[in-house]
C-alpha cells in the first residue's frame, strides 16, 4: 500500500498534462452543464453600476488586455460591451497599456456585432454609437492628461464618421456634452496589469470606476474595492461567469416562476433587472465547468503528491 502511494510521485508530468488536456477537451466538446452560481458581492456591485449609470452619458472603457489574458479579459470585455449595447449606452474605448490592446477590443466588438446581426438586433456603429480612440502610450502621463483635460488629450484624435470622412472625435454624437472626464456615465478598466492602479490614482476621485481584472490582479484590487475607490469589481473567469449570470437573471429580480435566482442579501432593496436583449451567457458559461474540473484535478494531484511524499518517507523510515 505504502509502496503504491510512494510510486505516485513517479508519475511523469507529461501524463498529468495529458489527463488535464483530455479532461478539459471532453468538457468543452461534450459536457454542456451551466452551473448554478452565487455571484460575489463585488461582482454584484459592478453589475449594479453598469445597469444604473446615466444612460444619456457615454461610458469610458480603458481596455488594457491583450491575447495573453484573453481567457479572462475577453469574457469581461464582451460581457461589459454586450450589457452596454443591450441597454443602448454609448461608449468610448482606448488603451493606455499595450499597442495590441485596441485591436483585440475591436475584434471582440466585431464579434458581438455579428452576433447581434444574427439575432436581428441593431448593430452598434462606430462614430454614432461608439468611438475607438486607439492607444495612448505611457499610462501615467496619458491618464494624468485625461484628468487635467480630455479636450486637450483627445483633441488630436480623429475618427471616420458615417460618411467615411475623418473628423475630430469631439464632433461625434458619442461625445456630445462631454468636456471633462467627470462627464462620463461610468469608467471601466478591463486590465491585466497595473494600469488599473494608475487609473485609480489619477482618475479615481473624479469618476465612478469599476474594475474587470484577471485572477492574478484580483487580490491586489480588493483593498480598492473595500475602500470605495472601485465601485464594483469582477475577478478572473469566475467573475466573467458572475457577470453573465447576472445579465441573465438580474439581482433581486424574480423570474417568470417568481423565483429570485440572484439574491443580494446585504442590499435587499437593490433590484437590478437582467439585460433586456442579446446574448447573456458566453465565455464564462462555456469555460466555467472546465475551470472547476481543472482545479479539481490540480487539488487531486497536489494531494496525491503529498501523500506519496509521506509514504516514501515512511518507507525510508524518516517519518514515524
Amino acid at each position, binding site marked *: 500500500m505504502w509502496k503504491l502511494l510512494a510510486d505516485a510521485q513517479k508519475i511523469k508530468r*507529461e501524463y498529468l*498534462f495529458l489527463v*488535464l*488536456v483530455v479532461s*478539459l*477537451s471532453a468538457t*468543452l*466538446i461534450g459536457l*454542456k452543464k451551466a452551473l448554478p452560481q452565487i455571484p460575489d458581492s463585488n461582482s454584484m456591485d459592478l453589475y449594479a453600476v453598469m445597469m444604473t449609470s446615466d444612460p444619456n452619458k457615454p461610458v469610458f472603457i480603458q481596455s488594457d488586455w491583450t491575447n495573453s*489574458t*484573453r*481567457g*479572462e479579459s*475577453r469574457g469581461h470585455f464582451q460581457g461589459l460591451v454586450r450589457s452596454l449595447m443591450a441597454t443602448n449606452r454609448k461608449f468610448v474605448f482606448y488603451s493606455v497599456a499595450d*499597442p*495590441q490592446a*485596441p485591436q483585440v477590443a475591436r475584434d471582440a466588438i466585431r464579434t458581438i456585432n455579428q452576433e447581434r446581426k444574427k439575432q436581428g438586433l441593431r448593430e452598434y456603429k462606430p462614430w454614432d454609437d461608439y468611438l475607438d480612440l*486607439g*492607444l*495612448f*502610450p505611457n499610462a*501615467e502621463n496619458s491618464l*494624468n492628461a485625461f484628468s487635467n483635460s480630455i479636450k486637450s488629450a483627445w483633441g*488630436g484624435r480623429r475618427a471616420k464618421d458615417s460618411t467615411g*470622412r*475623418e473628423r475630430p472625435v469631439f464632433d461625434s454624437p458619442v461625445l456630445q456634452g462631454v468636456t471633462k472626464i467627470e462627464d462620463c456615465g461610468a469608467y471601466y478598466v478591463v486590465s491585466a496589469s497595473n494600469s488599473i*492602479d494608475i487609473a*485609480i*490614482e*489619477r482618475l*479615481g*476621485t473624479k469618476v465612478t470606476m469599476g474594475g474587470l481584472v*484577471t*485572477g*492574478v490582479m*484580483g*487580490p*491586489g484590487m480588493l*483593498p*480598492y474595492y*473595500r*475602500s*470605495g*475607490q472601485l465601485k464594483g469589481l469582477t*475577478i*478572473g*473567469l*469566475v467573475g466573467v461567469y458572475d457577470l453573465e449570470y447576472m445579465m441573465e437573471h438580474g439581482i*433581486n429580480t424574480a423570474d417568470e416562476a417568481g423565483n429570485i435566482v440572484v439574491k443580494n442579501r446585504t442590499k*435587499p*432593496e437593490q*433590484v437590478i433587472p437582467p439585460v433586456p436583449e442579446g446574448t447573456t451567457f458566453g*465565455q464564462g458559461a*462555456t*469555460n466555467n465547468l*472546465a*475551470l472547476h474540473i*481543472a*482545479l479539481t484535478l*490540480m487539488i487531486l494531484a497536489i494531494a496525491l503528491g503529498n501523500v506519496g511524499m509521506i509514504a516514501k518517507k515512511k518507507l525510508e523510515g524518516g517519518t514515524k
Partner: protein
Amino acid sequence: MNQENLTYINVMLGSLAIIGLYSVLWRENLVYRTVEHIFLGLAAGYAVVGLWKDTLYIQWWLPMTGKLTDDGKFDSPGFWPYMLLFPIGLMAYTVFNKEKSWMSRIPIGIILGLWSGQQIQIYWNKFGPMIEASMVPLIPTATDSFFAVPTTQLVNGRIEQKANAVQILANLYPTEAINNLIFLVTLLSALAYFLFSVDIKGKALMGFNKLGRWMLMIGFGAIFGSTVMARFALVIDRLAYIWQDWLKLGV
C-alpha cells in the same frame, strides 16, 4: 478567396500555433522554437507600427506639421517647437555608446521628473481612502440582534424601507464588530512584520509579529491560487479555440 475561407485559414494557423507552443510541455523542440520566434517577431513589429500610427503620428507628427481639411484647405497650423522633442528622444539611444551615454540621462531625467511630480498628489489619491477605510469601529452599539439586520423589508411583494432604517444604519452589530476586529488585527500584525527599525522583544510582540507573517503567507497563498486559476483560464480558452472555433466541435 472569400471571407469565410480566409477566416478558416486564419483560425487554422492560430490553432496550429497554439499546438506548437504547447508542445513545449512534452519537451523543448524545433516547432515550439519556430512558433515562439514568429510570435515575438509579430508582437515587436506590431508594437512599432502601433506606436507610430496611434501615437507618434497623431500626437507628434500631425501637430508639428499642421493639418489640412479633406478638400485641401488650411485647418490648423503646425507647431514647430515639437521638432525639439525628436533629438531629445534620440538621446535615449546614446546609452549604447560609452562616450555619449551621459546624454541618455536627459530624457530619462525628464520622465523621472514628471513621474516624481505626479507622485506627490497620487500618493494620497491611492492610499488616503484606504487609510480612511481602515478606521473601523470595534465596539458593538446594537444589542437587539447579534447579526446585522437589513434596512428594508418585503411588504406584499414590494421592497420597502424600514421606518427606523436610519437608526439601524447607525448601529454596529456584533457580527460586524467581529469582522472589523479580524480586519484590524490582520492589518496591524502585517504592518508589524515590517518593523525592522526596532528590536522586537517579548513573547507577545514576537507572537504578534509571527501572526503578521502568517497573515501575509495566507495572502500570498490566495494570490498564488488566483494566479493558477488565471493560467487555467488561459489554457481552457486555447482549447476552446481549437475544439470550438477550428474543429467546430462542442458548438
